[in-house]
């Protein structure tokens, strides 16, 4: 049994001008200890998917349907109290904005210690001692001094390290990282990724990594889920996905990545892009969600939505024209 099974997840928001289907029927699973990346551009539903897992979507106006099974238990049926016992303990989360995600009026030590006191019943002193250890673990120098400091006294990279310390304090089984490196300098990004990879091996947590940075995906993920307009359009192990993307959207995403030296040797000096924008999620789209931007679009695409099909072992894509393995082989 997988650690996390998401089945037909639908997260909809009631808005004054209609229902926004931010996530519309997404299925995926995460095995224990595995790193799964969810990629896609802004507004494709990645963050909402992540927030839905922990039920951090305000309801109303949000509404989560489907099933989110964690260790076999459907979190959508859990009471508020049961959810609180899971959050920060068995499933924890790192957010995109390290500058604003820490409480400015509480010390770093208090914020790390809070989860420990809450979930493990540690005393204030024991929690602080453990907070010092956690700070050391995430590579913050002088943890004894830092533990008594406030977030504004730390740099962005250090704050994200603190967020990681908070997330890992209770040895969670699943860590959801929502764009953990997006707001950081490139050099700090590399350090944080390195830290996450290192800690993952030590703690043994599974990671759901939400990102739009394919470089990050290639570096840390084992399996990749590509989302577009609230749906999963492709899923594969990281190697096959990068070598042989099946869905035109994934091909476009990979094509828009700069390659080292490409501007010097290739004829094309301009970075490829996917024209257009993610369609409004307030209208039901009858055909393929990507049809409006797809270079290979036909009448079939605008009329009938393609089903997710296994195009190769362990490699699914939702496209009428993505070739199956046999066909490629033939």
């Amino acid at each position, binding site marked *: 049994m997988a650690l996390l099974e998401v089945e037909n997840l639908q997260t909809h928001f009631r808005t004054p001008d209609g229902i926004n289907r931010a996530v519309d029927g997404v299925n995926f699973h995460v095995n224990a200890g595995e790193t799964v990346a969810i990629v896609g551009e802004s507004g494709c539903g990645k963050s909402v998917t992540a927030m839905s897992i*922990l039920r*951090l979507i305000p309801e109303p106006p949000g509404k989560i349907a489907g099933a989110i099974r964690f260790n076999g238990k459907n979190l959508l049926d859990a009471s508020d109290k049961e*959810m*609180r*016992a*899971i*959050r*920060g*303990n068995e499933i*924890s*989360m790192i*957010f995109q*904005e390290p500058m*604003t*995600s*820490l*409480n*400015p*009026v*509480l010390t770093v030590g208090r914020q790390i210690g*809070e*989860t420990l006191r*809450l*979930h493990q019943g540690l005393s204030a002193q024991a929690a602080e001692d453990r907070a010092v250890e956690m700070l050391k673990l995430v590579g913050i120098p002088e943890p004894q001094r830092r533990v008594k400091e*406030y977030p*504004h006294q730390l740099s962005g990279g250090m704050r994200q390290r603190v*967020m990681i310390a*908070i997330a890992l304090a209770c040895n969670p089984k699943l860590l959801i990282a929502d764009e953990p490196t997006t707001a950081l300098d490139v050099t700090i990004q590399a350090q944080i990724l390195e830290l996450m990879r290192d800690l993952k091996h030590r703690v043994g947590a599974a990671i759901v990594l939400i990102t739009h940075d394919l470089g990050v995906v290639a570096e840390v993920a084992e399996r990749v889920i590509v989302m577009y307009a609230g749906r999963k359009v492709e899923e594969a192990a990281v190697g096959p996905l990068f070598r042989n993307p099946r869905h035109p959207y994934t091909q476009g995403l990979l094509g828009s990545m700069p390659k080292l030296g490409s501007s010097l040797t290739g004829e094309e000096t301009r970075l490829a892009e996917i024209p257009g924008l993610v369609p409004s999620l307030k209208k039901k789209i009858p055909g393929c969600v990507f049809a409006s931007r797809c270079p290979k679009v036909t009448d079939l695409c605008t009329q009938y939505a393609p089903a997710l099909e296994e195009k190769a072992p362990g490699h699914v894509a939702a496209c009428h024209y993505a070739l199956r393995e046999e066909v490629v082989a033939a």
Partner: protein
Amino acid sequence: MFAYIVRRILATIPVMAIVALFVFSLLYIAPGDPAAVIAGDQATPADVERIRASLGLDRPYLVRFGAWLWDILRGDLGTSIFTNLPVATMIQQRIEPTLSLMIVTLILAVSIAVPMGVVAAWRQGTWVDRAVMGFAVLGFSVPVFVVGYVLAYVFALELDWLPVQGYTPFSRGFGPWIENLILPAVALGSVYIALIARITRATMLEVLQQDYIRTAKAKGVGQRSILFMHALKNAAVPIVTVIGIGIALLIGGAVVTESVFAIPGLGRLTVDAILRRDYPVIQGVVLLFSFIYVLVNLAIDLAYTLFDPRIRY
């Protein structure tokens, strides 16, 4: 920090000087003549003139102001025209009831208004929120003396739970003291509660949108702890500011409240002094009130550092 406190206290001196000039000028311009009041209806103009000269009221404006200011700088608030008692003594006799009323009102108002505002923000848009906001509008718009008379009628005359009016000194025990203060404090506090509850709600609504509140939820923190630990401390600075500014409301309201509930405090002293044009008393009391106001707001500024570690002086 210490240097800052010293600087702020020194800065109150020019403020107080301006207040003094203002109070003095206002009374100089205002119609009415204490000499005529003392002399009574039967006096001839010559009598009034003689009394005026003996009070020193015939001297030029600047000379009078200079003399008064010089006395204050030496720590002498002057002598009442009517009772011939030193103003400082009169204030001393009357200060306990007023300070008691203001402190009880302050504690009552803050302990009611802040939770009210927090709950309204948490339950935004529900009937709880609307009830709190409705109460706030009511608190703003109904004058203190109306609230006072209604409370006295219902709780003192009809239900006979609390005394109708009067004041018992604290030295006679906490029970009788507080009994006499509850109704005046509620009457005086209603505007104040409305003000603080509104600001608390507005600030909390903003704080509850912040990313760190989402972080706290993701950590599994309970609702109450999120509201009162994570959010309220972040909302404290505007709330505390309004509590400080609202002290002015309490000072103004105390004058009316003391009249309604027959409390022998500074408010009554002020009203009596104004009716009799007892200039030294009016000036002394107003100066004292503005000094209290300035000091309270200094204390508030210092309190910011307790709530927000980013503020340092």
